[in-house]
């Protein structure tokens, strides 16, 4: 099998499955794929189909895939057990360019599953805290039992100023009521040109949160968003992810807000 | 500039999208299928000049002139001005712009058998009622099919229509004129419901059995049977052919007068307006009644209608028909 077939997924072993929330599980896969922060892979199950999944974390010889059970393919993945084969191809997408963030005052606002694509980046700064001037986390979840990566969050809370919001009733100590957007104004801001703001989550959440930052004067090209898109080929051929002249699978999924706001479905 | 035709307005202008690319066909309304023959000249000129030289006598007794270019529609509309004036406006239909052709096409041509101007069996002037019905309901774009037939022979196939309007007569007996020849009794026995019997040398009519076909009047040699001059109608409704559940229209009203018929049909448009499923391209009124229920229909249809003493109204609708698929009705 010549390897120049970009559509051909490779089989990798499933090391471990951890439950994050009722419908989100993290699958640790043994793989030689070396993704950058914010990139995604096409997860394949023979005879079922393919789905684009952000890499939530990675390490030496493994990657983590946090997958929500919402579709034909994801349902089948959730039926897998450790030791089963899972087929991957990728990594795809631009992801977060680390240089753009090193030494910056970074604010990361993540909504629900939006936390997955940025978890690896946060862990990097956790492990290389001097690479960042300051890191502030604003994590919003719909309800208490939907809070993901609770150990990591506990870890992060020690080093970074972390605000966790839950749309309705409070749960874990220190979590606050209401939508993320309400808490943006409490974020300590510094000189804008040293700042980088990353917002990842459902489209409406990203739109309103970005608006909040803009109101605080944060310039558009200082805000980064990541588009969860319906993909099929993930290599710029099938046309599903195209918005205007932009192929999200090629130029995205991470975009500056200045460009993102013009990408109208 | 390539053909860029808004299909909706064209269809509403009584032009059909045809199989031949770029060609449309004009459907000319002929209420009751009766027309002054002089209009035939115009129809021919239309077919020669804009069509393909052929004309179709439609299943609903109108004309269809195929083979017309879309862009010729405005010219054709101007050319058919005499038809608009001398047929539609003459019926009392209000049409402002007389050069813009037909203002609507949803409500199909009101078809009718030749009626009592020509046919001996007919109990009513179906052409006259068709003209009144045209004024009553046109222009309107709801998909409603109305047909009028002069007697229960039902040559117009009222039983396949949304509104099948059947002209009936109430035969009245002049007791002394009957000579017991039984011509009417034998005819009714053989061809209708056997509603007439002989008693003491005189005919007796079973009112419940009589379906008002009026044939006894035709048969009577002494004029003992004559028709009640007041015109009566039987209205069968919500029949249809089609690909799912062809069914025969069923009796809604019997022994009702002309203005009741007109008012009931008029009211039905309000019913459709209220209940039609806007999401569909078009919804046939039969299906709306199925969905919204006969009682909702009856209530609206009979609003403001005073039913005469003889009138009968269906308590519920029981249809006979068949379903191509057993579960056609189970969604």
């Amino acid at each position, binding site marked *: 099998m010549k390897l120049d077939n970009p559509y051909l997924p490779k089989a990798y072993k499933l090391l471990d499955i951890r439950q994050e929330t009722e419908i989100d599980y993290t699958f640790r896969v043994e793989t030689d794929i070396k993704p950058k922060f914010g990139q995604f892979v096409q997860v394949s199950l023979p005879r079922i189909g393919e789905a684009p999944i952000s890499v939530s974390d990675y390490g030496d010889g493994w990657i983590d895939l946090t997958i929500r059970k919402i579709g034909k393919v994801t349902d089948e993945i959730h039926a897998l057990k450790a030791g089963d084969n899972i087929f991957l191809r990728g990594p795809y997408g631009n992801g977060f360019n680390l240089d753009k963030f090193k030494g910056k005052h970074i604010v990361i606002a993540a909504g629900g599953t939006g936390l997955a694509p940025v978890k690896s980046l946060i862990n990097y700064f956790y492990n290389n805290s001097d690479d960042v001037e300051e890191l502030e986390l604003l994590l919003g979840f719909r309800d208490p039992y939907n809070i993901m990566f609770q150990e990591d969050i506990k870890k992060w809370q020690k080093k970074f100023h972390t605000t966790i919001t839950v749309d309705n009733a409070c749960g874990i100590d220190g979590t606050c009521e209401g939508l993320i957007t309400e808490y943006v104004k409490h974020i300590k801001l510094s000189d804008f040109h040293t700042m980088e703001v990353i917002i990842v989550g459902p489209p409406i959440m990203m739109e309103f949160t970005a608006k909040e930052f803009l109101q605080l004067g944060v310039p558009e090209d200082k805000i980064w968003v990541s588009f969860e898109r319906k993909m099929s080929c993930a290599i710029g051929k099938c046309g599903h992810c195209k918005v205007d002249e932009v192929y999200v699978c090629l130029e995205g999924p991470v975009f500056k807000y200045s460009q993102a706001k013009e990408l109208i479905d | 500039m390539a053909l860029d035709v808004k299909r909706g307005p064209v269809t509403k202008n009584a032009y059909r999208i045809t199989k031949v690319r770029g060609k449309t066909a004009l459907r000319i309304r002929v209420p009751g299928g009766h027309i002054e023959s002089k209009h035939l000249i115009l129809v021919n000129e239309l077919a020669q000049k804009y069509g393909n030289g052929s004309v179709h006598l439609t299943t609903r007794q109108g004309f269809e002139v195929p083979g017309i270019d879309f862009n010729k529609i405005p010219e054709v509309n101007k050319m058919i001005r005499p038809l608009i004036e001398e047929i539609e406006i003459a019926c009392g239909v209000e049409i402002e712009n007389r050069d813009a052709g037909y203002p609507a096409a949803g409500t199909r041509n009101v078809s009718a058998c030749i009626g009592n101007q020509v046919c001996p069996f007919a109990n009513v002037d179906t052409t006259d009622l068709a003209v009144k019905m045209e004024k009553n309901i046109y222009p309107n774009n709801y998909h409603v099919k109305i047909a009028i037939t002069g007697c229960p022979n039902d040559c117009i196939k009222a039983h396949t229509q949304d509104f099948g309007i059947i*002209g009936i007569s109430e035969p009245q007996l002049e007791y002394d*004129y*009957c*000579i017991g020849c039984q011509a009417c009794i034998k005819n009714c026995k053989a061809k209708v419901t056997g509603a007439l019997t002989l008693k*003491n040398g005189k005919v007796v009519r079973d009112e419940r059995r009589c379906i008002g076909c009026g044939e006894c009047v035709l*048969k009577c*040699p*002494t*004029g003992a049977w*004559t028709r009640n001059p007041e015109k009566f109608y039987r209205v069968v409704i919500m029949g249809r052919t089609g690909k799912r559940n062809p069914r025969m229209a069923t009796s809604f009203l019997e022994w009702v007068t002309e203005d009741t018929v007109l008012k009931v049909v008029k009211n039905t448009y309000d019913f459709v307006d209220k209940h039609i499923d806007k999401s569909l391209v078009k919804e046939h009124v039969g299906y709306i009644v199925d969905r919204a229920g006969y009682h909702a229909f009856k209530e609206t249809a009979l609003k403001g209608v005073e039913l005469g003493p003889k009138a009968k109204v269906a308590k519920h609708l029981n249809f006979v028909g068949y379903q191509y698929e057993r579960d056609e009705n189970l969604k």
Partner: protein
Amino acid sequence: MSIKVNNKDFNVFLDELSKKYKIFAPIRLEKRGRLSDTDMIRYGEIKQVEDIVWDEKSTFSPKEVFQPITQTLFYFTEDEYKEPKIDDKKIIVFLRPCDINGVRRHDTIFLKNGKIKDNYYKQIRSKIKFVMIECKKSFENCFCVSMDSNVTDDYAMAVRFKKGSALLEIKDESLNKTFTENNIKGETVEFTPEYVQENKVKVTPPDVDKMPQGIYKHEMWKEYSTRCIACGRCNTACITCTCFTTSDLFYDDNKNVGERRRVWDGCQIDGFTDMAGGHSFREKHGEKMRFKTMHKVYDYNKRFGEHMCVGCGRCDDICPEYISFSNCINKVTDIV
């Protein structure tokens, strides 16, 4: 004397007359025609001249005035017979010359055929005064001239109707008296009624003496077997058809009370030739046609010296199968 009266005065005259007379004339029954939306014109009682339809031929003849379609002969109450009461009011009938001549046929059958007179007929007939409607222009199917029934002087009064007025020639004394006594305004004029001189339809009735015996079995009648549907309309419309059938009946509510009555019948009406025991004859409609035709232009003449048919043409007007009786007579004549 002949007078010109306008309708108002004519009505006054009619009013006076209606004190002693029941006045019958052709009237229009709106939308009561056999076919939908057509009117029926037949004889009925009238109040004023506007009720009279004088410009159209009546569908049914005046026969029903002096020979009611249904006539009760006796009432039975248990075993006892009772003749019906007699209405003593006299009768005036507006009719045309052909009909007047037609009545003569009834007189012959009911009063002169055989020794015994028909008392029921006599009762009514004796009270009748004819008012002749002047008939100058033949209608479509009339052939009264051929049957020399276009002329008559057997009338108490003759009238020429006009728009809003009428010319009256009153021969009958009592009518004259009614007119003058009630000083009804009228302008004496010269008025002698004219008669139809020519019909579109020409008929030569067969020569009674040269009628060949073979006519009964002749080929020509076969055609009518395929055409005639024996609906009886020619009999009921005909001014000279006199046949009837008598039958008894008892009232539903009391079997012991009933009546014997007679109703119009006719050789073209189903059942006319049914015998007790189910046997029947002249079943083929062509035979019925032959029987009627021979009766109208041969048998009756042989017996009474004048043709029975007066050529009013009502049979041709009404036959649903468009069989022309006048034409049939000519065919018989051609064969003779």
